[in-house]
């Protein structure tokens, strides 16, 4: 999934109560005098705190605010949940993983919500003070507790009765307005408010979509971090309970309704489908098709990123996250949860370390005995005792190499000299025995005589014969050997080539996906802007028209009250 908002921008302002400090070493840390918390991780302002104090407040604003805060700090959710140092802003719940899993919608949500919605009216809910019902420009509504500064998209049960009363009242108003078409509804009521009631009955058409999401999104508090979830219409699913609620009490207003609302308004305003945001994000997502990378690819892409970024596999994951080197790469977002990233990191670093150690072990095979034995072969002579030999060549690097003990050098020297006195035939037999002791993988008919295995080169028997005699013996032995078991070298390069191809393919799949998503987003945005622009114009006109006579309406309502029992509202039935 794409999480394009992960680009880092300027750091957001600190939430209230937090101050930034510099440690002597230059690290920044943050301190909250009120809660006495300190952290190296820059705290994100809780969206609730700053927005709710401003009225009229705006649920889409809270979402926007959250967006500009941008990506949840990459470290959120990584470091040990055990300590408040890094995680005080995090709830104990498991919501974060969920959110990240749905991160693919960040971008699109952004474009959908930005230009549009804001509150246009507030109605005290009768009998439920201090709760008010707020309507937004796009015909959504939510409840707001002016005392507690809380707001909810989902209407708490205790308010339903009051809102029902409010709705009934409005329906009556509207009915009257329809009877006398020149009499406009009050400007404070959304022009399309009545439509919300209409479609309450239709909500059940979409219940089947609910299978993917669980009921955890049912109650979404706008003041919460998670408020953003509400901005994503198709994701807002309904449970069976909800549907029932709606059938009996037409006050529930959810994202499906908004989609319907928008469609209805679009038709009303003569827009073609597609010129308004039809809310079917899921559909276009599928329409773009084939964008999903397999889990395997996602993991591989993330590992590619790790390989390419040159991070130290020995480092703790928390440090990698804090450094923030990875987040800007699109491959970072192929894995959508911090848990998945950490798991992949663990796997990758374990393998990487293993590789590095194997490589090092190979290098260590450059045994210090090898150059020393070669040196002996060239310079040792029975004419010199060890102390003389040592003195004579004390300045040679082979005689000074500290990784070989002087004691060993002496031992090799004495052994070599004594072997030189043996008959050639037994030296030859010794050499052949040495060669035959080598496994076929190390020594075979493909072995180059100049690249003998270290086990041969570091053996005293290798230097006992004069080098030309010895090389002939070795060459003939090599020729008599079978080929190496499973030509490993070729396989290696074949494998490497395959790995390279795979990587290219993954990279391309990712790029394709990015491009298509970006295109799709642009298209959506164009349509959205266009549709919304038209709607705004139309609404402005309606508002102008409605501004005419409030007094006239009031007169009308009085009149309506007296006749309402007789004429049952067509929308109510």
């Amino acid at each position, binding site marked *: 999934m794409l999480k394009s908002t992960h680009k880092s921008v300027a750091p957001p302002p600190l939430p209230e109560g937090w101050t930034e400090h510099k440690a002597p070493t230059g*690290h920044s*840390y943050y301190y909250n005098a009120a809660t006495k918390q300190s952290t190296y991780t820059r705290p994100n302002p809780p969206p609730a705190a700053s927005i709710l104090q401003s009225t009229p407040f705006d649920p889409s604003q809270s979402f926007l605010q959250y967006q500009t805060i941008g990506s949840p700090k990459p470290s959120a959710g990584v470091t040990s949940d055990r300590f408040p140092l890094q995680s005080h802003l995090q709830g104990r719940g498991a919501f974060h993983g969920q959110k990240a899993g749905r991160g693919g919608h960040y971008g699109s949500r952004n474009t959908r919500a930005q230009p549009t919605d804001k509150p246009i009216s507030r109605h005290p809910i009768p009998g439920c003070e201090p709760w008010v019902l707020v309507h937004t420009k796009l015909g959504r509504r939510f409840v707001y507790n002016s005392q507690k500064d809380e707001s909810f998209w989902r209407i708490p049960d205790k308010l339903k009765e009051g809102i029902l009363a409010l709705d009934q009242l409005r329906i009556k108003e509207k009915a009257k307005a329809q009877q006398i078409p020149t009499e406009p509804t009050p400007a404070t009521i959304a022009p399309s408010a009545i439509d919300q009631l209409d479609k309450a009955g239709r909500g059940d058409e979409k219940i089947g979509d609910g299978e993917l999401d669980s009921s955890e999104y049912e109650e979404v508090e706008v003041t919460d971090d998670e408020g953003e979830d509400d901005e994503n219409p198709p994701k807002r699913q309904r449970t069976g309970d909800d549907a029932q609620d709606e059938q009996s009490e037409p006050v529930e207003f959810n994202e499906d309704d908004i989609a319907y609302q928008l469609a209805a308004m679009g038709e009303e305003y003569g827009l073609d489908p597609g010129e308004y945001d039809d809310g079917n994000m899921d559909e276009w997502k599928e329409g773009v098709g084939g964008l999903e990378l397999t889990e395997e690819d996602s993991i591989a892409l993330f590992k590619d990123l790790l390989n390419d970024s040159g991070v130290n596999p020995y480092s703790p994951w928390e*440090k990698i996250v804090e450094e923030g080197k990875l987040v800007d790469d699109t491959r970072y977002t192929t894995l959508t949860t911090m848990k998945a990233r950490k798991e992949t990191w663990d796997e990758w670093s374990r393998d990487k370390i293993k590789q590095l150690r194997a490589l090092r072990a190979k290098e260590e095979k450059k045994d210090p005995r090898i150059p020393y034995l070669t040196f002996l072969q060239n310079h040792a002579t029975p004419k010199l005792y060890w102390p003389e030999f040592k003195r004579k060549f004390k300045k040679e690097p082979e005689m000074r190499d500290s990784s070989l003990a002087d004691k060993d050098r002496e031992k090799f020297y004495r052994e070599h000299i004594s072997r030189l006195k043996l008959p050639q035939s037994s030296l030859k037999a010794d050499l052949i025995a040495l060669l035959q002791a080598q496994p076929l993988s190390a020594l075979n008919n493909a072995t180059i005589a100049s690249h003998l295995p270290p086990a041969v080169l570091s053996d005293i028997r290798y230097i006992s014969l004069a080098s030309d005699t010895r090389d002939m013996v070795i060459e003939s032995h090599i020729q008599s050997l079978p080929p190496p078991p499973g030509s490993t070298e070729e396989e290696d390069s074949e494998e490497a080539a395959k790995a390279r191809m795979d990587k290219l393919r993954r990279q391309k799949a990712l790029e394709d996906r990015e491009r298509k998503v970006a295109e799709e987003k642009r298209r959506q945005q164009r349509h959205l802007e266009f549709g919304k622009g038209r709607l705004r114009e139309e609404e402005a006109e309606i508002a102008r028209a409605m501004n005419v006579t409030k007094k006239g309406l009031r007169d009308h309502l009085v009149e309506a009250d007296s006749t309402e029992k007789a004429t049952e509202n067509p929308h109510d039935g």
Partner: protein
Amino acid sequence: MPAIRHASKRKAPPAGFSDIEDDLLVFSNKMKDAENASSDNVPRHQVLWPIFQISHQRSRYVYDLYYEKEAISKELYDWLLKNGYADAMLIAKWKKTGYEKLCCLKCVQTKETNFNSTCICRVPKAQMKEDQVVECVSCGCRGCASSD
């Protein structure tokens, strides 16, 4: 290698130390910061929290390197323990069932707590009320039961 880096008595670290040296240095710096941080406005019982936490993280780092990733040799691991890069006592606890995530040794010492039992942070989250926030007094731990 710089000649005068450690006290003359101390032996050079075993092979592999250079792989983790930088990361250990980061921990050391954090630790120094925490030790030098002003404790004004910090309740007395919380003053040591950052130190406990960094020490925990560093121990976990060393533990993972040796036991989880097999990234360092036994020799180097022992050397790290001996030289205070990880808390051997705490790691010994982690190897025991039920203590895999233990935050600090204080939290399993029954004597020091008010309740004459182990610390509140040892209680599994499943047994806590839904949104009960735990912060243990000794190290600021927010829950370290193995099942969490």
